[in-house]
């Protein structure tokens, strides 16, 4: 019953039709039953989950329960959970047990959420298919031979398969929205600075965002309401007041002007994706939205900008994995430098090494201006594109990904082909604006995602439009095909 999502489960819990313990047992059972096929979880935390569920049942009985109380959730393994091994799906962090909990995760726990386990992702969140996990790829619940997207692929698969009601994800180049699209769930990336990054294992600090994968738009609003807000432990988190996101959900689409960026509908997008997204835009128009054509002229440069800035920041952030402070070591190395070389060679997977190399090169003397500063300037142009577009519309609507879920192994030999799958999600990360992916139907039996992007701090409008679209359909209750027989 976890596929009912947060809002409906909370109603059932409040009416005492089900207990937090029963929901948690169902979650753990469903992980047991399905994860041999999906591999969404790196590890489960049954004792912690049942203990938390017990406390949630007590708070529900006492009438003091928080909005997420008793509802099973999963945590992407780049977010620290105190006393539970956290690896970022990397061998270099194998055995690392963090002594503290990420602020966003702590806020969910403070509101009663039940942590059932840590989900697999691309190593250090670097990837678009979850095939870069050092502990094996995750399968898509809609077709076990296909990827769930990435890097939050374990979280997406776990929510799609009803193993949990919702999951934490992180988005640096599309890592919440793209797997949400490919796995048929909702994925929300808030404005940069809206959610704390404290306790998030850093990949690219100016691009990393914490958000969630859920069954419904209302559920995404519930999670954001809890995890958003200033955190003194993250100096980039904003002191702005947090809006009431629930209030915007039922306002409807009428009166909103939606911009359709023409650069997101060009040669290269799969026919089935374009048909589903164009159909959704027509429905929004019929429901009262005004639809206008807009241009984001630097869209095509997004991937190139990203693949300079993100690796540059990563090469700096990942310098800390030296075999001295945590995780893997090389005890028989003769010198400290030999230890660095060996730990980092043995501990990092191929894609992480590739990005450290690109980033180090882009930051090295003689190339810094040509690559890194050039990319930072081009990033300004992408940001300005959005600012200009939002002068003539309230929101942008477009596809989340140019393709549906692709077969496992299809792009692993061609890093550039994998990078280009993020062409429609990277720009919102470069500009730091809020964006959401919602299911908008199937193409050949595989989910397609519809993306809304809004101006900074306007999560309320993004959620309002997404909720309005969602209310016209019943995609969220569909069972993924590959699990229907399970």
């Amino acid at each position, binding site marked *: 019953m976890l596929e009912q999502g947060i809002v409906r489960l909370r109603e059932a819990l409040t009416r005492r039709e089900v207990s937090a313990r029963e929901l948690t047992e169902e979650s753990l059972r469903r992980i047991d039953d399905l994860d041999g096929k999906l591999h969404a979880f790196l590890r489960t935390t049954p004792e912690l989950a049942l203990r938390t569920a017990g406390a949630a049942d007590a708070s529900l009985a006492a009438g003091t329960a928080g909005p997420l109380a008793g509802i099973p959730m999963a945590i992407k393994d780049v977010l620290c959970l105190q006393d539970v091994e956290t690896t970022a799906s990397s061998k270099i962090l194998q055995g690392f*047990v963090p002594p503290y909990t990420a602020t966003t995760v702590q806020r969910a726990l403070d509101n009663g959420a039940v942590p059932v386990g840590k989900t697999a992702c691309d190593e250090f969140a670097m990837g678009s298919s979850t095939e870069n996990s050092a502990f094996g790829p995750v399968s898509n619940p809609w077709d076990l031979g296909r990827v769930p997207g990435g890097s939050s692929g374990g979280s997406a698969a776990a929510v799609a398969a009803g193993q949990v009601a919702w999951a934490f994800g992180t988005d640096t180049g599309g890592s919440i929205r793209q797997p949400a699209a490919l796995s048929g769930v909702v994925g929300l990336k808030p404005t940069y600075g809206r959610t704390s990054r404290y306790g998030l294992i850093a990949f690219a600090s100016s691009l990393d965002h914490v958000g969630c994968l859920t069954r419904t738009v209302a559920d995404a609003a519930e999670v954001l309401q809890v995890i958003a807000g200033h955190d003194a432990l993250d100096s980039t988190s904003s002191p702005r007041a947090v809006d009431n996101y629930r209030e915007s959900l039922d306002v409807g689409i009428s009166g909103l002007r939606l911009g359709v960026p023409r650069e997101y509908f060009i040669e290269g997008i799969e026919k089935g994706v374009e048909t589903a997204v164009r159909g959704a835009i027509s429905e929004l128009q019929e429901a009262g939205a005004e639809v206008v054509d807009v241009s984001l002229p630097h869209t*095509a440069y997004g991937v190139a900008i990203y693949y300079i800035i993100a690796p540059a920041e990563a090469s700096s952030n990942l310098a800390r994995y030296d075999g001295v402070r945590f995780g893997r070591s090389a005890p028989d190395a003769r010198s400290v430098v030999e230890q660095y070389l060996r730990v980092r060679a043995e501990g990092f997977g191929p894609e992480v090494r590739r990005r450290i190399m690109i980033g180090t090169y882009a930051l090295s003397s003689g190339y810094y201006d040509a690559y890194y500063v050039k990319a930072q300037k081009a990033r300004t142009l992408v940001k300005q594109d959005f600012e200009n577009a939002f002068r003539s519309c309230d929101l942008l609507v477009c596809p989340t990904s*140019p393709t549906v879920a692709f077969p496992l192994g299809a792009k692993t030999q061609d890093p550039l*082909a994998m990078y280009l799958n993020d062409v429609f999600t990277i720009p919102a990360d470069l500009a730091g604006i809020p964006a959401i992916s919602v299911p908008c139907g199937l193409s050949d039996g595989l989910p397609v995602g519809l993306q809304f992007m809004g101006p900074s701090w306007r999560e309320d409008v993004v959620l309002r439009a997404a909720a309005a679209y969602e209310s016209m359909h019943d995609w969220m209750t569909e069972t993924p095909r590959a699990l229907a027989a399970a």
Partner: protein
Amino acid sequence: MRPESIPIAQRLSPSRVRSTKGAFSPQGSGGGGADGTFLGMKLAADQVRYVAQLARLGLSDAEMEAYSDELSKILDYVGQLSQLNTDAIPPTAQVGDLHDVMRDDVVGPSLGAEVAVAGAPDRDDGYFRVKAMQDEMA
């Protein structure tokens, strides 16, 4: 070859971007090398070795070879940014609206040394223990 049958990576590759107006191809506004530097050159094996050394990344000879090709392709792709004229554009280092965030210089609760180093492979009395660096200093 019909456009739909060309793999997306090929359609997006710089060589095709230059030769056609293919999918996602940037409509370059500048004349190339606007900042006076040519991007997208081939990375030689000794450069790969040098960068790996800067990154303290042990690589086998086979990996050096493979990276020389792979990284060159990626650098060639990101080199398309040279088509943009950015002479008058300021760089964006961060997109938040905060600057110079400070806190009061007051000691608050923290993990403590023992807990902070608890995950270290080699530790002693609240400290990280590292191998001698002397030999490397020469």
